[in-house]
């Protein structure tokens, strides 16, 4: 029985691949399966190849699969491009029929069919646009989709916006596609899914989860400049802030965005900005100001491929060290890396608490793959949401103080905070070095003490940080370390390795800075061999571990800087080879 399938829909930008993929994902989710989607689209307006893979599985999954089982292509270029990714036993349906151009080897391993979606659409509806529903209809046969579920999703999608007539025609197109497929696809070629119950689950992207996290964490101010792949956070917030007396501001650039958020936070709001790639580099100056003024701030960075404009719509993890070592000068900062959608939400909430408790910038560092792709997740339950504003003085507490010092030299490094409008709390904050009251002081005595006070906050924060998590068999000799979106492929790689008799475990780093060296050192010390998985060229996570943990053994880097995320085999294979 099939437990796990991947369906790719391929075409050109403008073909409606994204839309069709989203509908299919929803249908499969409603049939009870675990879903992970993977979009591979150009940063172009139109005309270029694009594809969308929907993976559905009986067990929990977090990333894309090793191969594709069903390819539905609007044109045949995609076949040549993806042929190596198509599993043996896979099935390919394409508008035209270029099967003749395949090698015999390729042909014997997969089944190819001409499936004239466009032609049918034009014939039947006089409009190519129905090709997408015809394609879905084809899948309906191949995957044995539940027609009532499909109809329901189609209704949800079109009824309100387009009316019942359009719904009807779309459903007709689906039937048409299904009938057509029945004629050409034989029973043994089908990938039949066992349907499950869909209860208490969501199909959601990381960016949406972050938006929700911000809202429930009490964030009410968001300033940003549009940039891919972070914009969905904004899109989500802009539809939910106004009725909650919150505000989304489109700023003129990223310099304004981070500084405006900082201003709002200084005034007492929970404030956030989000960005990616070039926008993050532009935020470095404001980042340092947040550190120096000890104003809480949450920055979400959804990593795309760099350097420079790079590949704006693809995924990478090459901005870790920028946030850890970036901006001039030393100041406290916290960098979090969520590894699941649930964590995207939870860490966002945590980020606001950490920012206010330790009065420093907190970076939520995620990746395009998590930000923009959809995954199934258990419905979020707020049971335990806590809003901890740290040492924020109440009006009353402040009035009771004799000589309020905003930057008092405290043991834990955290100084009680007063907000503008509070009586008896008047002070100044600034990016220049300052004394306990906040006023400029350039003496080396003050400088040294103030520097130590600020940095001490991170020591205090340590106990409060999100520890790394160990997955897999704790007794294994082989260790794998990774963070963020490498979680999925690493976990699957470990399962794969187990199947071939190799035991491995996985340390998921969830706080990148301050680095929890002890936990990582302990983990490494229980391993004979350690692999560090980095979705970047320089092995940034490995470099970080070397500098912070000073391991006794050499770490082996598994790198990928192709513009794509890892597949399980990209991790399992090198580990297996190294045995």
């Amino acid at each position, binding site marked *: 029985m099939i437990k796990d399938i991947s369906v790719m829909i391929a075409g050109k930008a403008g073909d409606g691949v994204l839309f069709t993929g989203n509908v299919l994902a929803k249908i499969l989710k409603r049939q009870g399966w675990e879903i992970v989607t993977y979009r591979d689209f150009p940063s172009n307006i139109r005309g270029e190849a694009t594809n969308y893979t929907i993976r559905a599985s009986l067990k929990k999954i977090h990333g894309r699969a090793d191969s594709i089982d069903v390819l539905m292509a609007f044109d045949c270029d995609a076949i040549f491009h993806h042929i190596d990714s198509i599993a043996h036993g896979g099935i390919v349906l394409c508008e035209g029929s270029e099967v003749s151009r395949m090698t015999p080897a390729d042909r014997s391993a997969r089944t190819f069919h001409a499936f004239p979606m466009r032609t049918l659409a034009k014939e039947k509806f006089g409009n190519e646009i129905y090709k997408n529903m015809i394609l879905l209809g084809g899948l309906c046969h191949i995957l044995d989709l539940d027609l009532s579920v499909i109809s329901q999703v189609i209704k949800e999608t079109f009824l309100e916006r387009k009316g019942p007539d359009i719904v009807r025609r779309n459903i007709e197109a689906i039937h048409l596609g299904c009938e057509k497929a029945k004629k050409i696809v034989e029973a043994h070629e089908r990938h039949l899914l066992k349907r499950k119950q*869909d209860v208490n*689950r*969501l*199909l*959601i992207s990381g960016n*949406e989860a972050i938006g*929700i996290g911000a*809202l*429930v*964490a*009490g964030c*009410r*101010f968001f300033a940003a400049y549009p940039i891919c792949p972070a914009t969905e956070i904004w899109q989500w917030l802009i539809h939910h802030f106004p009725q*909650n*007396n*919150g*505000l989304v*501001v489109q*700023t*003129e*650039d990223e*310099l*304004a*965005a981070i*500084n*405006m958020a*900082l*201003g*709002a*936070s*200084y*005034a*007492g*709001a*929970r*404030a956030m900005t989000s960005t990616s790639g070039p926008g993050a580099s532009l935020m470095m*100056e*404001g980042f340092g*100001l947040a550190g120096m*003024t000890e104003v809480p701030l949450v920055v979400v960075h959804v990593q795309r491929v760099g350097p420079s404009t790079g590949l704006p719509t693809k995924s990478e993890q090459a901005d870790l060290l920028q946030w850890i070592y970036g901006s001039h000068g030393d100041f406290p900062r916290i960098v979090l890396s969520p590894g699941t959608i649930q964590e995207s939400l939870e860490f966002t909430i945590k980020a606001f608490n950490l920012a206010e408790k330790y009065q420093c910038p907190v970076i939520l560092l995620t990746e395009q793959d998590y930000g923009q792709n959809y995954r199934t997740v258990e*419905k979020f339950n*707020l*049971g335990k*949401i806590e*809003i901890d504003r740290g040492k924020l003085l109440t009006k009353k507490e402040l009035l009771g103080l004799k000589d309020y010092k905003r930057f008092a030299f405290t043991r834990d490094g955290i100084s009680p905070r007063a*907000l*503008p*409008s*509070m*009586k008896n*709390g*008047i*002070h*100044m*904050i*600034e*990016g*220049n070095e300052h004394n306990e009251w*906040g006023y*400029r002081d350039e003496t080396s005595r003050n400088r040294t003490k103030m520097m130590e006070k600020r940095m001490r906050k991170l020591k205090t924060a340590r106990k409060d940080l999100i520890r790394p998590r160990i997955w897999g068999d704790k007794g294994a000799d082989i260790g794998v370390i990774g963070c963020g979106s490498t979680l999925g492929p690493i976990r699957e790689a470990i399962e794969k390795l187990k199947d071939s008799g190799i035991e491995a475990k996985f340390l998921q780093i969830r706080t990148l800075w301050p680095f929890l060296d002890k936990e990582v050192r302990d983990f490494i010390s229980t391993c004979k061999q350690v692999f560090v998985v980095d979705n970047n060229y320089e092995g940034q996570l490995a470099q970080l571990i070397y500098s912070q943990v000073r391991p006794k053994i050499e770490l082996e880097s598994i790198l990928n800087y192709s513009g794509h995320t890892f597949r399980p085999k990209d991790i399992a294979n090198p580990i297996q080879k190294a045995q």
Partner: protein
Amino acid sequence: MMEEKDFHLADPTWCSGCGIYAIFSALKKTSVTLEMKPEEMVVVTGIGCHGRLNNYLKAYGFHTLHGRTLPVAQGVKLANKQLSVIAVSGDGDAYSIGLGHFIHAVRRNVNLTYIVVNNMIYGLTQGQTSPTSRKGFVSKSTPLGSKESPLCGPHLAFVSGGTFIARGFSGAPKQLVRLIEEGIQHTGFSLIEVFSPCVTHNLANTYDWFRKNTFDVDQEKGYDPESREKAWKFLHNRQKLAMGLLYQEKGPSFDDLVLPMKTPLVQSKMFFGQKKLDKILEKFE
């Protein structure tokens, strides 16, 4: 009743004769007249000699980054619209590194007051040409004379949807007090540029120079600050620089439009119940 001394934190250390003293003094006076409370004022400054203001004026203060004064100030105001927010920049801060923010703040029209201390030079960095320096101006950075056209902040504001545009002069303190008062009372973004001689580094644009090269629209008979035609006439004068309340346009501010609720954003409810969340999550089911 507050007195000036209630807004006086410390004696300034600007060079003696510096134009900024007059601005400091005008701010204290205005605060008294308008019955402001130091704790409800936030003074946001940029980097430059003007940026020292926070060290002397008693109010909540945020000394930001060079050029980023306005983004911070707008954030403060939008988060808590009950605060009086006064942003202060130099000509370099406002019109060189901060120029984009300046014009966008003008068109956004957040309800705050912006004072630009225009000394036609970079004071703190010891005398480089600024965007308002005249053509031919000789300084450390343009020993052969500046070859660029000077910018006029009020004129830029005027064509960018500015709703309150004024220019004062450190040498005319009474008018300055009045302009700042009116600026603070204006609903929306008010720009008050102040000609403020730098007696140490700018030996060309002295008090006298300003007296000779300006004219005061507040003195013009029948001048209507709501007339765009008139404002253009004054601003466009290439011989002499206009001073006074140059243009005003009444209407709602950005904060009025985007934050219609009465409670300021900082006081909005943070906690978010499961029920409300469930409603939101339906879309993802």
